[in-house]
């Protein structure tokens, strides 16, 4: 179980002493992922998904807020002591090629963390070999033909599987998959998604799925949570299916409206939401971050910041003063 409250992260861009620039990547994010559970973060490019994922995986520090892993508040621990906790949360990178060391064979890649593990638990070299084969089998690869290979001798899909296998060597409690399929050929994407889902079901590994493609979020399982992030803030949060079929925040709605419709198979929603302008990075003063692009914004939106919360008749949390259901999602055409 991992929860985060009020996570804030600001990047100070290094430059001249005379001109400093700040990027507010996260502005107080709350989340909670149960053991063996699933969650997805979706949002536009640059909204802070990766940053949050990295913070959760312990690869990045945050400025404010608290991360609690298995009831232990990370802020109460020294950085060294946090390591074992964060080791149980493994990150799966977007680019499977750069995630593997080109000079090391797959076996060497798996061996290093396994050896560490063997030393900690007093197991021998044979165990390492066995375990290496085992994790490869778990991700659907044939150990015999893969172990001796170098990364460049594998296809993108296989590489991504190896990356997942490597994460499994430390028996993680959670995998953080950051756009784990966006670099993989269309025809193979589903395979990886299915693998993650499968691992979740068989091994009870929680999965945190980071993507800009809303549809893929569905593949981690219908009990999963969906967090829609806009400019470092969660603006809608609920069960995946609820949010996708009944979004209430205009931003979520515009995201869903933007998904191309497979004309001929689907028919578009009747109330598509189109934002007023492109993403603007300027800081709004106090108001809703989306207000300037929101077709439905009012006076109030530009002066007051809506907090994430619930409102009557809406099952999911949202950060909008005027939650309203709109028909934005494409539906399969009947008869096909």
């Amino acid at each position, binding site marked *: 179980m991992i929860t985060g409250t009020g996570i804030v992260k600001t990047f100070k861009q290094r430059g001249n002493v005379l001109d400093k620039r700040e990027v507010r990547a996260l502005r107080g994010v709350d989340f909670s992922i149960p053991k063996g559970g699933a969650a997805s973060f979706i949002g536009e490019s640059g909204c802070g998904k990766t940053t949050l994922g990295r913070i959760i995986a312990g*690869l990045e520090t945050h400025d404010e807020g608290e991360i609690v892993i298995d009831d232990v508040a990370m802020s109460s621990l020294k950085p060294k002591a946090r390591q*074992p906790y964060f*080791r149980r949360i493994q*990150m799966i990178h977007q680019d499977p090629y750069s995630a593997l060391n080109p000079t090391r064979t797959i076996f060497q890649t798996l061996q290093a963390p396994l050896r*560490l593990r063997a030393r900690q638990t007093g197991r021998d070299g044979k165990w390492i070999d066995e375990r290496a084969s085992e994790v490869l089998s778990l991700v659907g690869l044939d150990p015999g033909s893969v172990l001796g290979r170098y990364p460049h*001798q594998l296809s993108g899909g*296989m590489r991504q599987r190896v990356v997942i296998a490597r994460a499994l060597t430390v028996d993680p409690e959670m995998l953080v998959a950051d756009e784990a399929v966006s670099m993989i050929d269309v025809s193979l994407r589903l395979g990886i998604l299915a693998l993650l889902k499968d691992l979740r079901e068989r091994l009870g590994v929680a999965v945190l799925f980071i993507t800009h493609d809303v549809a893929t979020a569905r593949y981690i399982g219908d009990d999963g949570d969906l967090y829609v992030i806009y400019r470092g803030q969660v603006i809608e949060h609920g069960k995946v299916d609820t949010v996708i079929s009944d979004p209430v925040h205009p931003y979520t709605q515009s995201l869903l409206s933007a998904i191309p419709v497979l004309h001929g198979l689907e028919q578009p929603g009747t109330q598509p939401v189109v934002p007023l302008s492109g993403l603007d990075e300027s800081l709004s003063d106090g108001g809703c971050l989306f207000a300037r692009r929101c077709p439905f914004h009012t006076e109030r939106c530009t002066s007051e910041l809506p907090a994430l919360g619930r409102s009557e008749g809406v099952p999911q949390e949202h950060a909008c003063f005027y939650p309203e259901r709109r028909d934005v999602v494409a539906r399969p055409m009947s008869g096909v």
Partner: protein
Amino acid sequence: MSELILETSTASMRRNFWRGVWRVMKRKPSRMAGVVILLGFTVMAVIGPLFYPENLPYDPNAKYAPISWEHWFGTDGQGKDVWAQLVIGSRYVLLSALVTGVITVVVGAGLGLFSGFKRGRWDTVLMRLTDMKLTIPGLPLLLVLSTVWSFGSAIEMGLVLGLLGWGGVARAVRSQTLSLRERGFIEAARGLGLSTTHIVGKELLPTMAPYIAMNMLVAVTGAVYAQVGLFFLGVLPYEADNWGVMLNLAVFGGGAMTTTAALPYLLAPLLAILLLTLGIVLVVDAMDEIFNPRLREE
């Protein structure tokens, strides 16, 4: 599992690294020549001096003798064989180059790795230092230093040159480290809790080895030239059978720039340096292509 079906053909397509090296070498015979030249110099330095007595025979009646079968590059102002001096001198040059190389790599790569890996404050401080070091002109500094230290031996010489020459390597290694850090596999290794020793020793260094080697070669070349140059200027204590001293004596003692008698004496070390440079250039050219896909022509 069906993904594996095409494996064999892929594997055969992928050339293994050394075969790639061989291919790059083979494509231009000049590159082979480069390797041969460098090997030649190494052999010359390692076993060449063994063929000559500790003190070369001299002949006061054959000063600045012309080129002959007996004296391939004539004789010097003492009537000693120039070729023999060249061979003996190569040991000093290459030994100091070796020491320089080792130090540049150890210090340069060490600092570069540390700096790129730690980032943050350490990085800033170290890189400011490196920048500074790179800004201070090496040769004038050496000139000034030569008055404080006497570079007694090749090893001492290499030591000083190495300590002055690590800047370039450090910077190169740092930027490489920084870019590798961005690569997922380093971050993954950290996430898996692997030790820093493992990350640096097993993940970073092997990936950068060729890159470091190339930078080292460049640094070493510069050091060799600085060293010979200092002797040539005559600001360092005299060393018998030293290339730079030969240049110095040929020009300022033998009048090689005025008359022809001492010309072979001047040309011998000049040609040796030229050839050494050529060898290094050709090898670096090959390295360039092996490690820089951009230059890898079709």
